[in-house]
């Protein structure tokens, strides 16, 4: 019963924080485009405020650069439970083009924090990002909540 109430509440109020850990910011602008009236993120009960301390979903973009090796875990720990991380773009999954000789990246991001879902693309379309958050968000948050109890 309690869980059902919790799920219902969480489902219609997902707070999102975009964490750019070193990409080309192409993915970030696509996340910003989600806020535009065309996609209107807020009608789905998703709210982007970029504050890790209030976030349910961390949208990870970028290929984890040197500076983020420690900071990524710190930011993740700051977010209150239950929380999930969704990797946007190729960068956090494989390092994309930056993961070659000469590059300073430490992809994949899942080496540092648990990643619940990944959206491939360089960058993925805003509609794909939206779809992914809506598809995995509520269930993954609920599951994570059960784990914590």
């Amino acid at each position, binding site marked *: 019963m309690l869980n059902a109430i919790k799920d219902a509440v969480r489902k219609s109020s997902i707070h999102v924080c975009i964490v*750019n*850990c*070193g990409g080309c*910011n192409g993915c970030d*602008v696509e996340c910003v485009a989600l806020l535009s009236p065309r996609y209107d993120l807020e009608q789905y009960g998703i709210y982007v405020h970029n504050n890790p301390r209030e976030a349910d979903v961390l949208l990870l973009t970028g290929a984890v650069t040197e*500076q983020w090796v420690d900071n990524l875990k710190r930011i993740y720990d700051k977010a209150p439970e239950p929380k999930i991380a969704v990797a946007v773009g190729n960068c956090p999954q494989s390092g994309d083009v930056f993961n070659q000789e000469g590059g300073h990246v430490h992809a994949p991001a899942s080496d540092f924090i648990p990643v619940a879902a990944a959206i491939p693309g360089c960058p993925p379309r805003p509609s794909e990002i939206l779809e992914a958050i809506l598809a995995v968000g509520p269930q993954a948050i609920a599951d994570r909540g059960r784990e914590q109890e």
Partner: protein
Amino acid sequence: MIVPIGPIHPALKEPIRLKLQTEGEKVVKAEIEYGYVHRGIEKIIEGKTWQKGIYLSERVCGICSYEHTQTFAETIEQISDVDVPLRAQFLRVITNELDRIQSHLLGNSTFFKSMDHETLFMRVLELREYAMDSIELLTGNRVNMGWNVVGGVRMDADERHFKPILENLEKIEEGFERTRALFAEGPALALRCKGIGYMSKKEAIKGRAVGPIGRASGVKEDYRNGHYTYDDHFDFKVIRRTEGDNYARTLTRFDEIPESISLVRQAIENIPDGEIRTPVDLKSGYAMRKNEAPRGEVTYMIETNGSLIKNISIRTPSIANMDSCAKYMIRDVPTVADAVATYATSDPCVACAERVAITNEAGKTSIKKWDEVR
């Protein structure tokens, strides 16, 4: 007291750390800490073919990704002594200006967001989507277009593309006037940004501010003047203002949008028939080219040994703009909120800026100055 902001903060869209030194409410000084998105692109490009290089150069920065590929391609073309077909040059102008429109709208929307003016933020983003649609229609991608190749462009375009683009431009124009007036004449916003974040022309030159940020302070450089396509075939007005405050910077960006729209129209009207790509015989050598990206001048210096790139050095506008922002604009700003808004008007693009950062063994990051890379 020092107020640190970032790297992840509601008002910032990219990771950076602002250290604001405050006296009471007032912000007296600011310092910017870079290095969160340093990926080492220049090092990766070394020893690769141009096909790989241009792909990587596009990912220097996602917002103004187009201008990077164009400058890269033009540098290699200059080394190899080839002339790009005129039709390809016109197609490059179309994409370049569409990219400028969307980037300026995005820059302004970030500023409105940092001022907490949701209405304008939404309106500007709504207009931006039309520019994004046009870009997607023409090139197939929204952000990283992959449109340029050495020797021309990747695909041809025809009426089926041009007609919807012109329609989209009309839609942008329709909403644009009112949006601009809302900002320029609305009392609440103007009060909060007139006279804030002032930078004089002298300081702008000293800080090497470029692009709309420099032009809002009276600097007159626009590197589209001097580019062969623009010089020979296009008419446009360089927008300049003299106030040098947040208001002027935002308005400069707004006023450049109709100019870009007219440039796209001119290009579509006068586009000549012909080839879109010439075969290129790669030569070895060194060349440097400057182009006007949405945020100012982008410089590419490339040395090749025939087929491979031996050395590449990229200079992007953001580093100079952000530096002059910290040094000159954020100085005696009334509140912390205004300091963050001032930072947003300098249209920072962190991903661009962070490829010349050198991290030495001690972990100290230093930024190369313009003189050093020249």
